[in-house]
């Protein structure tokens, strides 16, 4: 049988190490998501100042400072949570994980309030002008990614409460945290493009 002849004993002893499947997969996912966001960012920049009617970004947008602080600090709390999990400090992990969830929820609720104000008080909807179309699409695409991340975070938190989260899941938690960092990094870009350059 050829199969047996394929076992070279002298090669079999050398070390053979390949990267983790999960890590490569999540990097691929982040890569393709980055491309998706890039196209929306390009569309936003391309249409800057091309709206035929008002309102303009300068008239209606305010710097979302507090929500940005919340989202960016959630990246720190999730790293700390990850470390607590690695050191098997269960209660600290639960606290930090919950803190991450709360920070994400604050970010989302502030986005919701921003949109409410824009729609009901300042008269900017997705169909008002090009600015509205591109603004709600780009910020909404990011917010939808935050929602997905929030669901993952909640899932892990529920598992940790039921006690079904073990050290076996360490790499999975790490992957969620990588995804979360990606969502945060995208916000830095969106913040710069929409609220700094675009205003």
């Amino acid at each position, binding site marked *: *049988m050829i199969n047996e002849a394929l076992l070279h004993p002298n090669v079999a002893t050398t070390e053979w190490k390949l*990267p983790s499947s999960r890590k490569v997969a999540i990097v691929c996912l982040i890569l393709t998501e980055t491309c998706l966001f890039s196209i929306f960012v390009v569309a936003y920049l391309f249409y800057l100042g091309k709206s035929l009617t008002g309102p303009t970004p300068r008239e209606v947008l305010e710097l979302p400072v507090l929500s940005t602080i919340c989202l960016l600090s959630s990246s720190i709390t999730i790293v700390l949570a990850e470390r607590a999990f690695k050191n098997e400090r269960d209660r600290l992990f639960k606290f930090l994980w919950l803190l991450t969830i709360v920070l994400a929820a604050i970010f989302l609720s502030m986005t919701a309030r921003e949109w409410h104000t824009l729609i009901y008080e300042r008269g900017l909807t*997705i169909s008002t002008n090009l600015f509205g179309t591109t603004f709600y*699409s780009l910020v909404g695409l990011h917010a939808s990614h935050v929602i997905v991340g929030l669901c993952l975070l909640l899932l892990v938190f529920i598992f940790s409460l039921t006690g079904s989260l073990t050290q076996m899941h360490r790499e999975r938690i790490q992957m969620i945290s990588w995804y979360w960092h990606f969502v945060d990094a995208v916000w830095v870009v969106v913040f710069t493009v929409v609220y700094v350059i675009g205003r």
Partner: protein
Amino acid sequence: MAIQEIALTTSRAPGISLVDRLHGLVVTVDHKKLGLMYIGTALVFLVVAGLMAVAIRLQLAVPNNTLLEPEVFNRFFTMHGTAMVFLVGMPIIAGLGNYLVPLMIGTRDMAFPRLNAFGYWMFVFGALLLYFSYLGAPGLNGHGSAPDVGWFAYAPLTGRAFSRGHSTDYWILSLLLTSVGSTVSAINVIVTALTMRCRGLTLMRMPLFVWMMLVTNFMILLALPSLSAAQLMLLVDRYLGGHFFDTQSGGSAVLWQHFFWIFGHPEVYILIIPGFACMSEIVPVFSRKPIFGYPIMVGATTMIAIISFGVWAHHMFAVGMTSVGNTFFAISTMLVGVPTGIKIFNWLGTMYGGKIRLEVPMIFCLGFLFQFLIAGLTGVMLAVVPFNWQLTDSYFVVAHFHYVLIGGLLYALFAGFYYWYPKAFGRLLNRKLGLCHFWLFTIGFHLTFDTMHFSGLLGMPRRIFTYDPGRGWETLNLIGSVGAIFQAVGVLFLAINILRSLRHGQRAGNDPWDAWTLEWATTSPPPVYNFETAPVVRSRRPLWDVKHPEDPDWKYEESEN
């Protein structure tokens, strides 16, 4: 021989009812079954979309023909193009990758088997949704049927005002679904190739097939989001009153073209690189020589992938870009010719001085070499901007990309079918039927697409549903339509061959072609677990080393480094 007995008992166990078999297909996560399901489903759509092409050719056979209504004609060329790219090309590539990559790298399955099944079913869902548009798309007042905006769906044709009913929505949603399927399948192949290789199989020992699949799937990850993003924007325009591509509110129809072709041009290479992959496995085996210039092939593939992301606007020369833009995209397009030319020379270099065996797979590879060369040459011609201005949207362009996708890709895929069919089913495809397939298809191909170059040069625009007599197009079109029938009969021979050989084909054994890569080290068909023990590899041709212990490849490869 334990493996063979187990494999035979599982595949021929008596008393498995049809329902159980279908149920088995629905719940399977085995990469080999899923790979064959991908290819089988794609072949069904190849027939459907191919028949649409035959109908198009029949309509164009004579001037002022009334076989197809103009509206029906628009739907046919749209559905033909969309289906051939997304429901035939992409899934066949996913299927080949699924079936062969784990076998070639000596592992038991893909990295994420359930994700693999998910990807397949997303593709099936999207594919059925696209064809369901015939029933589901008519909206109020009976407007809409199947999509009729062309496969690149230029704005403003897709706006609410011009595309009433839901035909464009079906086009968007079905392609978004198949894109999800393609993306997860791409991630799966990449992860498998990078993290599941058997001991000793370093990156620079990987079969070129796996290398090219790796590159192509990376391109899918980078290119597909551009289409998905543009389609999401179009959905916002159509359903939420957005203005992305609405010129009346300051939007830009040209931006859609940019976004579409940022996806669309890499897509062409996503489709053709798996063709290169088949060529790079089959040509060496039937020339009895290792591939000429392995590292250069890897480099050339990567170069093609990188350059292909900088050439998209050569589809848009006629749109009125700046001369700087035109010049840039003309030069970058011609640049692609360099690594592609390197590949052609490497295949020729592999054949040069080899002991060529003219089996059916090799004959298709030879067809590929001639036809792909011509396709490349007309491609360089079209990269010249003034020439492109003259012939844009003419039948010359249609001839060019059909030369690439049929004369190139499809020939390489046919070669792959004849080459790997014995591995998948344990029986060889019939040689005589295969030769009939080759000659009928080749004669038909040249009748149809050689003539199209000339009708294009004579000014015949693409996508017209009929034409007046007296412009010099009649004979060329008639010949082209006769060729379509030859091609259809050729494919019929392939279908008969595939079905007949399942039961009556000559038994193949494990390694009918005396080949060198790992998939031939296991039984045909391979058992569920592929390899009883994980193989260990020391060179690029592990089976050569086994068959020729007195003169193994690794002696040379290790002294090279």
